[in-house]
């Protein structure tokens, strides 16, 4: 596959037709449904898209109209994107777990006229949204289950729309081809709303050129080919899924598979055995945690064998993957380990065939990263953003530095502001924030450079290292540099710690909130016969607190070795009585901590951290799983951690 795209294949509808012509008989998309992987070839996809596009046109979708797409990853929803683009409409995918209220904002802001939704759950939201003031002209649904008695005249089933489309197509021969031909690379391909850590979501407008060029560059960089297997399980509204599961598939022609449901992703992953896999660090972390927990329950022989070979892998696994010279003895041991442990492990996790795995979005723990690489999974990091059509920097094969995010991707330039903020310029740079020129101007300069908002630097090998959000990097009152996210990530690398929130900017010292990981700590409790009735009780258990203290102190040791950050070691901390939750607004939908929101919500706790108190009382409102709200109260202990003076290593060196 060449990276250069022929001029006339500048939109996805055109690419779709091209794939249908070139690879018509090859699988294009699969969905696990009714027990098997139902498969559509490129030729079938092209026909489906055509029927749908004509049907949408027949329903009144016009060039320039927006169509919301809401649901889990489903072939029909992906086709809707292409179908809409074919007739010049703009798809606006929404996060499927958003509440109707959150969706209303986007639907209003983007002036969405049509919605293509997955099932009854989403249809109900659309009906609610529409009941306001006549937004949304037409709503189309994929799965009719439970909607037998819905008789709203704006509701249409996918099948009906396609049937109408086929009639329309026959009646208006040449319409579809003409519409597709009208599209050009500079047209808007999609508007992706980023959830944003603060404020209202912004609609990132990406053109076909942005996406097609970026996708092609990614394909060239990693030699992606026709035979890749990809599992599409991340939200369709997220740029990564759009590029990996949609854009690159249309360019390279590989097949994308949709899991049966969000509950069966891990099982489906195991069945499918993708060759090209993307997951945020959180997922790799969860998988590793489960691996460790499951191994704890194995017999001692197996456990010993596992740990022995994991140590072998730690010693030489990454080097073998990177094709570096490794002593023969280690190579042999690794080969045995591959037979006994790594191979089976990859198999049970579904990574047997992974040629290329990426993680991005946040920093991944070095231990976690090393675990995957040493067991023979080519896991790499990339650094990207919606505004860049994903790629900013990527780790090239064989050149993996765990604490960096790699070299600039093809055709990407990067530079740094005086304050250390990373900026980039590339063909993927977004067109604008939809209907907010002001925000666009604040992010994108006139000559096409974009502010990332992240602080970082290039190391001597030319790899980018990200420290923190530029605006979050602050200073303690004593002038020491304070990078909260850097500290939080270091803490989160411990399996027992699920989330951490660090405070310190313009304070006397650094202090943190910690969230325990229920799975990891719960399993520990079970193994050690520690009884607990609730999350809250477990979080306050003295042994848990002791173990968290040890972790904090370990982080302090790490920090003490960093010249710049040695001054911001953690002095006081507490373990929160409830899990930070997106439903309570404490996390974003992509599960990033909203630091200032949390600080406001728990201001009494923050103050307690900076007081002399050794415990404090708190009452918190929370949302339960069934959507009810309630208040929980707790007495929290405030603990102190040892800090390490940073001077000795430097002095010893001099």
């Amino acid at each position, binding site marked *: 596959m060449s990276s250069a795209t022929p001029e006339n294949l500048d939109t996805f509808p055109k690419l779709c037709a091209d794939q249908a012509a070139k690879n018509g008989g090859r699988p294009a998309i699969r969905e696990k449904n009714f027990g098997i992987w139902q498969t559509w070839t490129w030729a079938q996809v092209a026909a489906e898209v055509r029927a749908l596009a004509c049907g949408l046109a027949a329903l009144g979708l016009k060039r320039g109209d927006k169509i919301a797409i809401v649901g889990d990853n489903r072939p029909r929803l992906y086709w809707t994107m292409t179908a809409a683009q074919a007739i010049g409409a703009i798809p606006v995918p929404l996060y499927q777990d958003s509440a109707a209220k959150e969706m209303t904002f986007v639907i209003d802001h983007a002036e969405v006229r049509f919605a293509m939704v997955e099932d009854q759950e989403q249809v109900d939201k659309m009906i609610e949204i529409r009941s306001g003031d006549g937004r949304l002209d037409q709503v189309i649904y994929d799965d009719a289950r439970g909607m*037998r008695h819905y008789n709203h005249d704006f509701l249409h089933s996918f099948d009906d729309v396609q049937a109408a489309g086929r009639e329309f197509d026959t009646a208006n021969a040449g319409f579809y081809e003409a519409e597709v031909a009208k599209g050009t690379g500079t047209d808007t391909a999609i508007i992706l709303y980023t959830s944003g850590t603060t404020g209202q979501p912004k609609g990132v407008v990406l053109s076909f050129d942005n996406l097609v060029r970026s996708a092609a560059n990614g394909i060239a960089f990693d030699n992606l080919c026709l035979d890749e297997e990809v599992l599409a399980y991340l939200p369709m509204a997220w740029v990564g899924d759009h590029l990996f599961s949609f854009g690159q598939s249309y360019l390279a022609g590989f097949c994308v598979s949709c899991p049966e449901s969000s509950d069966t992703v891990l099982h489906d992953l195991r069945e499918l055995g993708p060759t090209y896999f993307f997951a945020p660090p959180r997922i790799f972390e969860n998988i590793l945690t489960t691996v460790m927990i499951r191994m704890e329950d194995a017999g001692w022989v197996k456990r010993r064998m596992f740990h022995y070979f994991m140590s072998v892998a730690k010693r030489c696994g990454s080097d073998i993957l990177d094709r570096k010279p490794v002593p023969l003895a280690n190579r042999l041991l690794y080969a045995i380990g591959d037979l006994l442990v790594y191979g089976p492990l990859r198999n049970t996790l579904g990574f047997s065939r992974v040629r290329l795995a990426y993680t991005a979005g946040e920093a991944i723990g070095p231990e976690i990263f090393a675990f995957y690489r040493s067991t023979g999974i080519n896991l790499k990091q990339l650094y990207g953003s919606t505004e860049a059509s994903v790629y900013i920097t990527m780790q090239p094969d064989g050149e993996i530095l765990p604490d960096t995010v790699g070299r600039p991707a093809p055709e990407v330039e990067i530079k740094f502001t005086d304050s250390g903020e990373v900026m980039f310029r590339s063909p993927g740079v977004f067109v604008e924030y939809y209907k907010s020129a002001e925000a666009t101007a604040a992010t994108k300069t006139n000559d096409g450079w974009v502010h990332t908002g992240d602080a970082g630097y290039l190391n001597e090998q030319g790899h980018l290292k990200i420290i923190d959000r530029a605006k979050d990097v602050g200073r303690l009152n004593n002038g020491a540099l304070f990078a909260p996210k850097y500290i939080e990530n270091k803490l989160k690398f411990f399996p027992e710690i699920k989330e951490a929130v660090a405070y310190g900017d313009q304070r006397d010292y650094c202090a943190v909130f910690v969230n325990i990981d229920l799975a990891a700590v719960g399993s520990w409790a079970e193994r050690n016969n520690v009884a607990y009735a609730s999350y809250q009780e477990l979080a306050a258990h003295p042994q848990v607190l002791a173990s968290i203290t040890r972790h904090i102190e370990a982080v302090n040791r790490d920090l003490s070795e960093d010249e710049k950050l040695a001054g911001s070691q953690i002095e006081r901390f507490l373990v929160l009585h409830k899990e930070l939750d997106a439903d309570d607004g404490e996390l974003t939908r992509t599960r990033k901590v909203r630091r200032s929101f949390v600080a406001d919500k728990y201001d009494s706790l923050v103050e307690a951290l900076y007081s002399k108190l050794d415990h404090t009382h708190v009452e918190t409102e929370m949302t339960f799983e069934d959507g009810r709200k309630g208040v929980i109260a707790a007495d929290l202990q405030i603990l102190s951690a040892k800090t390490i003076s940073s001077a000795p290593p430097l002095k010893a060196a001099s």
Partner: protein
Amino acid sequence: MTQARERIGDTLLALENVNLAFGGVRALSDVSFEIREHEILAIIGPNGAGKSSMLNVINGFYHPQEGAITYKGKKRKQMRPHEAAATGIARTFQNIALFRGMSTLDNIMTGRLLKMRRNFLWQALYWGPAVREEMEHREAAERIIDFLEIQSIRKTPVGRLPYGLQKRVELGRALAAEPDLLLLDEPMAGMNVEEKEDMCRFILDVSDEFGTTIALIEHDMGVVMDISDRVVVLDYGRKIADGTPDEVRGNAAVIDAYLGVSH
């Protein structure tokens, strides 16, 4: 919950003066009622009222000494249960009667057996028409699995499933036969609130999506009042009331039977 029940149609099955006795024990005395197309009919009554016997009579497992059964407009002669099944009657059981050695999928596939036509010689070769037939029915079974949301236990031996799921699989097996009349013997017995809600939803969905006529026995009055179109009340083998949930609720005889006043 009973929207669009205007589609309730003619009588599907009518029982007239049915009498059933075992040795000297009378199980049913002179019971008459009818089941109408597309409706959900609940049969209620205290323990030992003859409810299960009623279902057993309908599907041909017990043969009443007296009385007539008219099904689909024709007077039915005495028949064996498998003959009744062939006329479109399927049922579930009070004490789960799944095939414990088989997987969920296989259990549901047994519900399709009546519809499979190829003989064993084709099967022995597992070739051509036999395979095609097998695949068609697998697809039908998968639709039921999807409908009942039991995808994740497709290949699990049913013996290992928790009680609530077993009940669901049993419903699936009955549905697989695409019955005209579905008999459910205490479909929600022993379930927790959440499982009951699921089961109610499935029963209503079955009625909605497939238009199946359903007769069910249930003890949970809340459920009965919620989902049924009509209720028949039995006590000591006799019918003491028959009507809409609201009518039955106010019936003095029913109240007596449940409070044990009149006996």
